[in-house]
């Protein structure tokens, strides 16, 4: 982003990578896949790079409003400094926080989840989505809470999957009644409370009931939780967990 600024240009959109997308080895693949799609669609995008910082979502959900607002104010300073208008992110948690919780603190942007952004590229004819190797594969989509219930977006990822010509099978609990993967509310960063079962196992079992070849996700944390679940069930050889963006990028072998 700093380079754009130096050249006096501004990008079409800022790609907010997020902590998982920057540091987690699995999530980095999603980041790269999405970046490839953006390049392929000739989207003029920038990243903040080393100037990006946690949105504060886990801090806020853990109850640390102070830390959240510190993070938010710093990020807003950076974003407003660059005159950012439009943000796209591959993480529904960043998406929700930037979209819903930054405006009251002075950060007003048009924020899109990457599935929404890809859908708009598709509609504008800038992105081609073809089935390729996913054609006819049995796939179930796990709704991320912070995209679905939190922001009422259930259709964008499904429309993209339909375009991949997959056989989309819904889990028993889907869309507004979708079951959480267990990572939200800062649970990702702690051990779960005592219980009979881990939430990701419960959700993975439900996904497995649909006999999928791939569990599609739209969130790096859901991805981790579901991948762990599949591994826990020793099914990693027959069931893949993939982000919708990865599937689109892989379909056309980008």
């Amino acid at each position, binding site marked *: 982003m700093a380079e754009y600024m130096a050249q006096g240009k501004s990008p079409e959109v800022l790609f907010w990578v997020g902590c998982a997308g920057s540091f987690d080895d699995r999530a980095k693949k999603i980041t790269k896949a999405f970046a490839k799609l953006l390049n392929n669609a000739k989207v003029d995008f920038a990243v903040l790079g080393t100037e990006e910082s946690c949105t504060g979502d886990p801090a806020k*959900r853990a109850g640390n409003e102070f830390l959240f607002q510190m993070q938010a104010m710093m990020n807003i300073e950076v974003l407003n400094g660059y005159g950012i208008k439009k943000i796209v992110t591959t993480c529904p948690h960043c998406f929700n926080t930037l979209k819903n919780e930054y405006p009251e603190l002075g950060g007003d942007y048009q924020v899109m989840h990457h599935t929404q952004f890809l859908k708009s590229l598709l509609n504008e004819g800038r992105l081609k989505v073809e089935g390729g190797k996913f054609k006819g594969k049995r796939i179930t989509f796990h709704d991320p809470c912070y995209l679905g219930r939190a922001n009422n977006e259930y259709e964008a990822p499904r429309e993209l999957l339909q375009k991949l010509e997959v056989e989309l099978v819904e889990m028993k609990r889907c869309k507004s009644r979708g079951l959480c993967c267990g990572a939200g509310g800062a649970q990702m960063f702690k051990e779960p*409370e005592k219980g009979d079962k881990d939430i990701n196992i419960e959700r993975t079992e439900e996904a497995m009931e649909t006999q999928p070849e791939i569990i599609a996700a739209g969130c790096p944390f859901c991805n981790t939780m579901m991948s762990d679940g599949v591994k826990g069930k020793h099914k990693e050889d027959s069931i893949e967990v993939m982000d919708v963006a990865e599937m689109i990028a892989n379909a056309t072998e980008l």
Partner: protein
Amino acid sequence: MQYIPNIIFLIVLVVGIGYFTKNIRRIIRNIKLGQEVDVKGDKKERWGNVMRIALGQSKMVVRPIAGIMHIIVYVGFIIINIEVLEIIIDGLFGTHRIFASLGVIYDYLIASFEILAFLVIVAVVVFWFRRNINKLRRFMSPEMKGWPRNDGNIILYFEVVLMVLFLTMNGADHVLQHMGSDYYTEAGMFPISIHLYPLLESLSEETLILIERTAWWLHIIGILVFLNYLYFSKHLHIILAFPNVYFGNLTAKGKFRNLESVTKEVKLMMDPSADPYASPPEGEEAPAKFGASDVMDLNRIQLLNAYTCTECGRCTSECPANQTGKKLSPRKIMMDTRDRLQEVALNVEKHGEFQPDGKQLLDDYITREELWACTTCNACVEACPVSIDPLSIIMDMRQYLVMEQSAAPNELNVTMTNIENNAAPWPFNQMDRANWIKD
């Protein structure tokens, strides 16, 4: 002498409605023990929600069996109240079936009341089976032991008894009409109570009048008792669902409340021209407590939520933590909040103002283990048919734990330290953020 029944009726009515009014005032006072809340958003949208969600029961039918049964009881309740109006007028003025002059319309009204009364009995029996024989999981949770379970059944018994009395009254009335008993003018159509005809027709006129009058009196007294039972039970939702839905959240569920007291502090901290040694300006209030440890720290909408909850348990049955055996149950959060609020209210009544009683909502009612099990997934909020938000209470209590007590689970303390130090929940260097580009 002939006015004695009218006078007794008036006394019963005044006592019944008077005591109920008193308790409603108590509820309002108790809710006002909470923090004031700025209700934002479009009034039109709020009324739209009341029409759709509360009056229209739109979220009840997400579960079709319970939803349809509930709509029957609900419609029955509302429609049969027209009959109660007639009973009150008759009781006060010594008339009988005052609306009979409506003619055919009256016939259809009475007929529809009867059919609804019958359907209500059917629905209530189904509800009873679901609670006591089928033992639906959501009615068997630990928080439903004892009073909450009895409360649920008592309400069902009340409804059956009231409907049976109503039909008995009509049945006897109908026979008396046929006998040509004076006072019992021919009026109404009785598609259900007609089936009582064979049972009743052999009885003498006096016995029939006795049955009709007894059922009539018990019916209206029963309604007044039930009205006053509401305050002591979970059943207040029949009234509070409407204001509760009105005040329900209008923004995206993912948007959690912004704590303005914190914003002030953070802005001050980030202001390079702020004087670090400045003493707070005189007359300024001490900063508010962060988060909630007791009911007085919650806001009024959250307390209204607690009174509105009818313990249906849809929230708990959708909660991922609860489904996997954790202690958290969103319904219990609401029940605990209400129970503690009642306790605080009694304390206030006794002492004039709240005297510390060595207890609070946190720990004495809601444990930390419950609070930390929440994934903030909003399933409970989505599931509630009357727009209750258990998640906001969980969040407020987490804020208290973290910001007032620094009592987060250790792993979360590490996470938060990471965010503070290197701007990510994991211990990676911020300078490595763009490494994926080179990989």
